[in-house]
């Protein structure tokens, strides 16, 4: 039911270690995400686990803050340092907050690999989506669809998570940039905290205001937007979202949403882990800035 995700998760780390050659020291890699709930992070974890399975001899732990909070993320990094990690794979909440602590980690010889979102401190490698670019692509999609439907103007609503999440803010920025100089009115962004129900209430209100299109900046926002369009029966409203989940797919299939921008979090985790182990072992890494890309998933290209 998670069609594009990595294959079934690896057996747990312990069984793994028994199989590995006992001679050389295990590489300890710790993944720190923004929170623990989002599917996105679970997929990153899955990808990392898949790499661990292939590489062997890796002691891997996922230290997730229970919510998105800079202080918590910094604590997690400190914990990882205290836990004597060799490498940290991290999705930085924002570019600044975590930097000083990561510097500290680097000074202890710990390798930093960024997944999803980098911080200012230089890391060994970054595996991330270019969110602004992806947002712009989403905007382009909506523009095309509206033009095709002959709607040259109208209001467009944006459902975001909150104004503090760098990645979704970047998507919004990209999305807005696609409409520059066109005849559409982009309404004030509303924030639904990524909660599907709250986002749906917001989207319902947008529909009442007579929008021609709604953009959801993450999974929860997208599900909310899709359900609102579906519930209103106005399928001519163009709904475009971000991220993938079963619900989003079914909303695309029944025509409530036009498409979604799918990132590849499993690739981030998988490639990130490989790079981490390489870096610890002192091997060279071919490419240090990897755009893991987005794919546009529509009715015709989802399974």
């Amino acid at each position, binding site marked *: *039911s*998670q069609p594009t995700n990595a294959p079934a998760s690896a057996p747990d780390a312990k069984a793994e270690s028994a199989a590995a050659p006992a001679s050389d020291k295990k590489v300890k890699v710790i993944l720190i995400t923004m929170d*623990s*709930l989002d*599917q996105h992070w*679970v997929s990153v974890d899955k990808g990392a686990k898949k790499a661990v399975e292939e590489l062997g001899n890796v002691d891997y732990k996922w230290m997730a803050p229970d919510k998105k909070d800079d202080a918590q993320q910094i604590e997690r990094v400190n914990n990882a340092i205290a836990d004597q990690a060799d490498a940290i794979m991290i999705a930085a909440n924002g570019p600044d907050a975590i930097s000083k602590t990561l510097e500290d980690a680097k000074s202890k010889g710990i390798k930093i690999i960024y997944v999803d979102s980098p911080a200012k401190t230089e890391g060994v490698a970054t595996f991330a989506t270019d969110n602004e670019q992806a947002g712009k692509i989403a905007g382009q999609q909506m523009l095309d669809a509206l033009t095709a439907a002959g709607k040259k103007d109208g209001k467009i609503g944006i459902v975001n998570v909150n*104004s503090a999440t760098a990645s979704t803010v970047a998507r919004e920025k990209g999305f807005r940039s696609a409409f520059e100089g066109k005849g559409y009115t982009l309404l*004030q*962004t*509303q*924030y639904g*905290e*990524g*909660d*599907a*129900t709250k986002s*749906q*209430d*917001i989207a*319902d*209100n947008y*529909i*009442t*205001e*007579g929008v021609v299109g709604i953009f959801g900046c993450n*999974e*929860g926002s997208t*599900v*909310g937007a899709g*359900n609102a369009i579906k*519930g209103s029966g106005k399928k001519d409203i163009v709904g475009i979202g971000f991220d993938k*989940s*079963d*619900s989003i*797919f*079914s*909303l695309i299939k029944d025509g409530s949403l036009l498409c979604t921008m799918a990132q590849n979090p499993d690739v981030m985790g998988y490639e990130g882990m490989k790079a981490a182990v390489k870096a610890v072992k002192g091997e060279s890494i071919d490419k240090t800035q990897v755009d893991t890309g987005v794919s546009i998933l529509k009715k015709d290209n989802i399974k």
Partner: protein
Amino acid sequence: MENREKQNVWKKVMAIRGMGQVITVTIGLIALWIVFGLLSPSFYSARNVGNLLRQVAPILIIGIGQSYVLITGNIDLSIGSVVGMSCMISATLMTKGMNPWAAMLLTILICIGVGVLNGLLVAQCKLPPFIATLGTMTVARGVAQIVNNNYNTDAIGEAAQGYRNLFYYGSTFGVYNTIWIAVILFLVFDFLLSKTRTGRHIYAVGSNIEASKLSGIDTDLITIKVYVVSGFCAGIVGLITSATAGMGTMDAGNMYEMYAVAASVIGGVSTLGGQGILIGTVVGAAIWGTLQNGLQFAGAPVAMRNIVIGIIVIISVLLDVIIRTGKPRKSKKSNHSNSVSGTSQGS
């Protein structure tokens, strides 16, 4: 003749305890509607009225549960997490192929179980309600997360379309089902609270639990009952949530316990127990929902919204205090501390 009868009805309504406050707050609500209507023409559109009411419904339902608990002088912080749990459990069961009605029933039973647990912890184990339900709040959120192995569920799919229509998308006599559900629950629980023996016992426990015990009331049972009502209401809202989104989300219902408190208290339910009527909670929920909905229409900058909501909450309760006691400063029976109320009024 007729005029006189009218007067009597009015008199009767006003004689209901706490009605004064409800009327004050209702005036506030109407004022809000006027302001938002002026600020945004679409606020009054048929579509938005339906929408608004549908958005108010879940707040009202959890407000009913919280009001029951507050009236006994306790509090239920686990409501939000139970909403999340109900949402995840129902959706998980349905995606795993269980019949929607069976899943619904099982979910509600589990939520009632949390209510029983809360009641036992508070009544039998004598835990302070704040801390007992803070504990179950954390546990219930954990359960919401673990039930589908830390994933939001997949879409519950076509099989459960009837379920989704029942709780959110469908209408009956031109009114959304969600609204009907809220209305029915309100009628039932208002009847129970205001007209029956159990209802009277709930007020008595909130007013003086010792005296209630000595009057032959099984106070432990009453405490358990109110938490069961609260768990049940949260469970229903959880079902509405999973029907709305068509999937289970692990952090559904986050902060709802606070919305429920706000709705209750704005409507005149005292956090100290013994006071409040459910019609007040209806108005309180409506104010809360109107603020959320109306501010979006009014185009209030997002950052201002919290400030406006916070100030309105404070003012509405302040107004009530002023009206009830003449002047804020003069009130002799200060409610201002949990610990002293109840028996603080002197002879």
